């Protein structure tokens, strides 16, 4: 079954075309990478998938639902981790988890999730006092608290040190094993190679290439990425 279907998506802001004629599909259980330089249209695509913005043209289905029309139902099935994590500074980890758990019909076990994300010791720490990696892990935990069928993780490991990055990758493997379809938005090629079953490279709002990391490696994924996206923005 298809988890995400995007067909000829187009979105423009004023005169600027952010996304133009973008199509791809993500199969259930797959880890799909959306790659591109800053401003390539990744975030706009994510916003449209999450129902935060209405596309100007094209058709989107996430878990078979229209993100705008079926917004409410989709919010139960889709977990989103946005680029900058966003919580009040004085909220503690456990409070944030309980709050977000209260939004969903059938939330995941908080203690189990904190354990899996190595946050149990920090459960009474306020958000402001967390390190970058801990904030990131909390934001992943919040994206997973509603037991989503599909998770969109945006700039997952930006700002993490190499060890924290490896740990996060291992975590993504674990999440996939639980049957969650994952869309990973990134500009780290090693991350995409290590985690993704397939990737799409966006360039100036269009899909420049799509395939498995091995198919696109000429000779490495990064070389292909640079060849497709360098220069012109």
């Amino acid at each position: 079954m298809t988890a995400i279907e995007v067909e000829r998506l187009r979105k423009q802001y004023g005169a600027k075309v952010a996304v133009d004629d973008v199509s791809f599909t993500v199969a259930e259980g797959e880890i799909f990478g959306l790659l591109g330089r800053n401003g390539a249209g990744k975030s706009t695509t994510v916003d449209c998938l999450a129902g935060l913005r209405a596309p100007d043209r094209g058709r989107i289905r996430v878990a078979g639902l229209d993100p705008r029309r079926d917004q409410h139902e989709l919010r139960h099935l889709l977990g989103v981790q946005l680029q900058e994590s966003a919580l009040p500074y004085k909220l503690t980890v456990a409070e944030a988890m309980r709050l977000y758990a209260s939004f969903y019909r059938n939330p995941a076990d908080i203690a189990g999730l904190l354990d899996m994300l190595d946050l149990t010791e920090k459960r009474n720490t306020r958000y402001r006092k967390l390190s970058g990696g801990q904030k990131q892990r909390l934001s992943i935990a919040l994206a997973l608290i509603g037991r989503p069928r599909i998770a969109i993780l945006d700039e997952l490991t930006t700002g993490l040190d190499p060890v924290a990055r490896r740990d996060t990758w291992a975590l993504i493997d674990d999440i996939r094993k639980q049957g969650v379809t994952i869309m990973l938005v990134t500009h780290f090629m090693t991350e995409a190679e290590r985690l993704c079953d397939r990737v799409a490279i966006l360039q100036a709002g269009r899909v420049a290439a799509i395939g498995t990391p091995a198919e696109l490696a000429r000779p490495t994924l990064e070389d292909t990425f640079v060849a497709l996206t360098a220069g012109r923005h």
Partner: protein
Amino acid sequence: MRMLTLTEAKLLIREPLALFWGLAFPMVLLAVMGLSSSDIDGLPLVAVYEPIVIAFIAVTFGLQGLPVQVASYREGRILRRLATTPAGPVRVIGAQLIVSLTVVLLATAGVLAVGRLGFAVPLPRQAVGFAVVAVLAATAMLALGMLIAAVAPTARSAGAAGTVLFFPLMYFAGLWTPRLSPTARHVGEFTPLGAATQALRDSMAGAWPHPLPLAVLGACTLACSVAAARLFRWE
């Protein structure tokens, strides 16, 4: 919704400065007035100031607390994050309004208690009328605060707008000169806090508030709410 409201209440309790200005300061201000033996038109200063201090509470939470909080939630992308959950961003604003209104009414009750217990100011004789005006004054200020939050691009600018509006609003409430000139008083009747103080004073003395101040407060609440809902920027 219950969880969101509880969380917002907890977050407010963790802001000692906001609680001081909104809750403790009005009581201290009233107590200071109570220590003075002067009176205005035969009323002790503390009784004259009680409705003014109550207006001050509404303005503190409505114009300084709420808009900054809501704007910082937008700036910190908290509203956006919530938009991806089944709760949506509207409810967290609802929770903020509930918490703000509750605290304003608690602080108002606290000021009445300080006046009564500390300085023998009688409790409002027209209690129902007083309650109606106190709630309307609070909603008018919260609605105006939401209008600021709707259009202010950042928490800083929301705070600045609240402070700028504070002075004229509180001038007509009589914070600096409780006995306004007849002209200023007449103009003040058409401002929300001028109207509120007048109506609070009347109901304290035992009269049902006049329709004009109730209409002014109602109109302010309605107009600001509608404008805020229309103009609200989610991002």
